[in-house]
């Protein structure tokens, strides 16, 4: 209706009722004195309803005296009246302001650290390095020197190719790119021996450069020199070279498994019970009293950080404990069964080491005891051995 309705609302206005016989005169005087009236409505010949600004109301009273009208306030509207109303509720306002302040101040802290991009490096190690440089939960955002943290991480870890820290809301995200550990490269023009890196029996030695010190069938232990990085000629003196060559050897991998003939096996019954507790920083409140009613159970703990919106983490954690009941059953195995299980377990353990290599032989040794058997599985594998080792002269 009124073009500056909102402005009037902010200033505050009153609904008035004017009663009298000279209402037209009253309106005209208001007009000449520049008092803005709006929403004028004549109820009957002597009654007028209108709206007027709060500050102009005193002037209206004087005009009313002149024109012999009665004036009454019917209602008050606007911001000044709202403020006056809430002035009585000081505690409410104080708490409201306090809440706003708390949220603003809390948003200045880091409440959560995430690490992205790591597959081999444990999170804890990076968090530990970061916390030494001042990036840990509960620290002021402004005090964190991300550049220094990045530098420190890169200095301490040589298996990280790139580090970036992004602070999003109350979240610090450490992004890392892992690097493969670089092998020690010995230059071609440097002198080196080839030494054995494991215990083995040599099956084949072919030296491209250097002097082979072992023959076929020789047993070498870890650290023995296989191809020496020097050459001795009849006419020349001892000459150092960069040893090169291929060595094939038999290597044994073994694994021993102890299998009980009588064994207790865990089996979940499917019964579950969940309990919750709340954690503020380091202060934990348990929301439950009793311990679970199961006799035997596994406990699974899951933490959940509370957050406002999408990235404003609060320093409150919700911890859920899930108790899973299990039953213990006793299984009695025969010797044959036990042997089979032991062999299977040992093979899966060794599978990683022998994969892709030529298997020459497989041995299974069984040792029977009173109530258990020991199964030893030995794989004989032929593979290339030998690593370069620099000669210090």
């Amino acid at each position, binding site marked *: 209706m*009124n*073009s500056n309705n909102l402005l009037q609302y902010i200033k505050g206005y009153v609904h008035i009722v004017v009663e009298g016989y000279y209402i*037209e005169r009253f*309106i005209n005087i208001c007009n*000449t004195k520049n008092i803005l009236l709006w929403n*004028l*409505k004549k109820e009957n010949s002597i009654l*007028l309803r209108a709206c007027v600004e709060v500050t102009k109301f005193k002037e209206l009273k004087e005009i009313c005296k002149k024109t012999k009208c009665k004036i009454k306030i019917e209602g008050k509207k606007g911001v000044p009246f709202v403020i006056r109303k809430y002035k009585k509720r000081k505690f409410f306002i104080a708490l409201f302001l306090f809440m706003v302040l708390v949220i603003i101040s809390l948003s200045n802290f880091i409440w959560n650290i995430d690490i992205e991009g790591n597959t081999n490096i444990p999170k804890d190690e990076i968090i530990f390095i970061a916390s030494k440089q001042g990036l840990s939960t509960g620290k002021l955002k402004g005090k964190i020197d991300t550049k220094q943290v990045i530098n420190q991480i890169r200095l301490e870890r040589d298996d990280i190719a790139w580090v970036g820290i992004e602070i999003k809301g109350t979240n610090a995200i450490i992004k890392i790119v892992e690097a493969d550990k670089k092998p020690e490269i010995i230059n071609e023009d440097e002198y080196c021996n080839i030494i054995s890196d494991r215990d083995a029996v040599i099956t084949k030695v072919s030296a491209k450069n250097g002097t082979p010190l072992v023959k076929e069938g020789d047993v070498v232990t870890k650290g023995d020199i296989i191809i020496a990085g020097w050459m001795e000629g009849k006419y020349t003196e001892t000459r150092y070279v960069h040893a090169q060559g291929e060595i094939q050897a038999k290597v044994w991998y073994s694994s021993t498994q102890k299998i009980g003939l009588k064994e207790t096996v865990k089996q979940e019954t499917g019964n579950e019970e969940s309990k919750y507790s709340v954690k503020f920083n380091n202060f934990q409140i348990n929301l439950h009293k009793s311990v679970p009613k199961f006799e035997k159970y596994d406990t699974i703990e899951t933490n959940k950080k509370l957050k406002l919106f999408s990235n404003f983490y609060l320093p409150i954690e919700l911890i859920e404990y899930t108790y899973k009941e299990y039953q213990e059953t006793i299984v009695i195995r025969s010797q044959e069964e036990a042997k089979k299980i032991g062999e299977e377990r040992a093979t899966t353990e060794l599978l990683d080491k022998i994969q892709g290599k030529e298997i020459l032989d497989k041995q299974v040794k069984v040792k029977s005891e009173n109530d258990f058997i020991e199964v030893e599985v030995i794989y004989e594998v032929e593979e290339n051995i030998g690593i370069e080792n620099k000669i210090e002269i």
Partner: protein
Amino acid sequence: MKRKSRKLDEILEIPVELSTNTPKVTVVGFERLLIENYRGILEYQEYFVRVNTYIGIININGFNLQLEEMTSDDLLVTGKIDSIDFETITDDEDT
């Protein structure tokens, strides 16, 4: 003097309601009526508004008439307007 300035206004194409005290009456739909350049209100009832201007009187008949906005220059009358009529004052009477 008056004639000269009128000619100048004509050349500059200044609207009449700005150069003189002529009222401008705008009717929007059948329920809103805006009067610019008015002098004052002579009579105001729910069914009848009588507005004084520099060249005459404007009478508005209707129901539920409301003076929605009132400044020293403009007057916005809303409500169900039935008829508008004008009473012209001759120059002799005015002065």
